[in-house]
């Protein structure tokens, strides 16, 4: 199984300028995270490059531009032995995505019976299958239906 890696950074990052690259990521911390995800970082076969939100293509690892020294060392420590390039990428919508994922965990804390009562109190059909809930001002707000995020048996 091969692994490809790409990286995105904030709007101040300029492609091709090693001096502007973010500092190296802590390899020990990231190795723990990768292991938790079940990802084996020992094989890199390609790099996915994006610029301005557009994927500009997949590159053969041999033709990639040099990456910053510190980042290269961190990636090698992670087991990405053949990484020779880094990517300049779009500004990712990380904060919104992380908020949505945390809401998913919050939803898992609600018992199905309690959820039916809550849905009824909110004026929704009792047979509705799921919602995305976000904690706001100390309470839970019923935001929207998220049937693709929640399964019928996912409530505890």
């Amino acid at each position, binding site marked *: 199984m*091969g692994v490809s890696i790409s990286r995105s950074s904030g709007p101040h990052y300029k492609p091709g300028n090693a001096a502007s690259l973010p500092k190296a990521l802590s390899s020990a911390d990231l190795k723990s995270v990768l292991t*938790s995800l079940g990802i084996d970082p020992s094989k890199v076969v390609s790099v996915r490059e994006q610029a301005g939100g557009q994927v500009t293509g997949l590159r053969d690892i041999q033709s990639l531009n040099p990456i910053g020294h510190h980042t290269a060392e961190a990636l090698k420590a992670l087991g990405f032995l053949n990484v020779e390039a880094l990517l300049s990428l779009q500004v990712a919508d990380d904060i919104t995505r992380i*908020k949505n994922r945390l809401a998913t*965990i919050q939803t898992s804390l609600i018992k199905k019976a309690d959820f039916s009562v809550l849905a009824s109190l909110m004026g929704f059909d009792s047979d509705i299958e799921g919602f995305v809930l976000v904690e706001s001002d100390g309470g839970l707000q019923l935001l929207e239906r998220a049937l693709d995020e929640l399964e019928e048996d996912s409530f505890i």
Partner: protein
Amino acid sequence: MTHAAKIVQFSDDAKTLPDGSKVIYAESDDKIVLYHKIPFERGLTYVFDRKTQDILVNGKPGDNADKRKMIKLGTYFLEHSSEDDLITLDIQAKG
């Protein structure tokens, strides 16, 4: 089969949260991960399974209290982050 994941953390490796700790967020199709590192202490890894809704803490089964801790930690991380502070590793496994 394609396996994809994203890892998000501060772009400046020296930057910490106000309490001095570091958080790394990661997600894949089936997991949500928060890694919490307090100085001079062992790191804590929270892994939430998006399919089973179960949680593991450092590899051991957790409970609702651990889920609440994970949410609180993620919220704390977001409260002290901006898009400009963050970088994302976009990882794809092919095979």
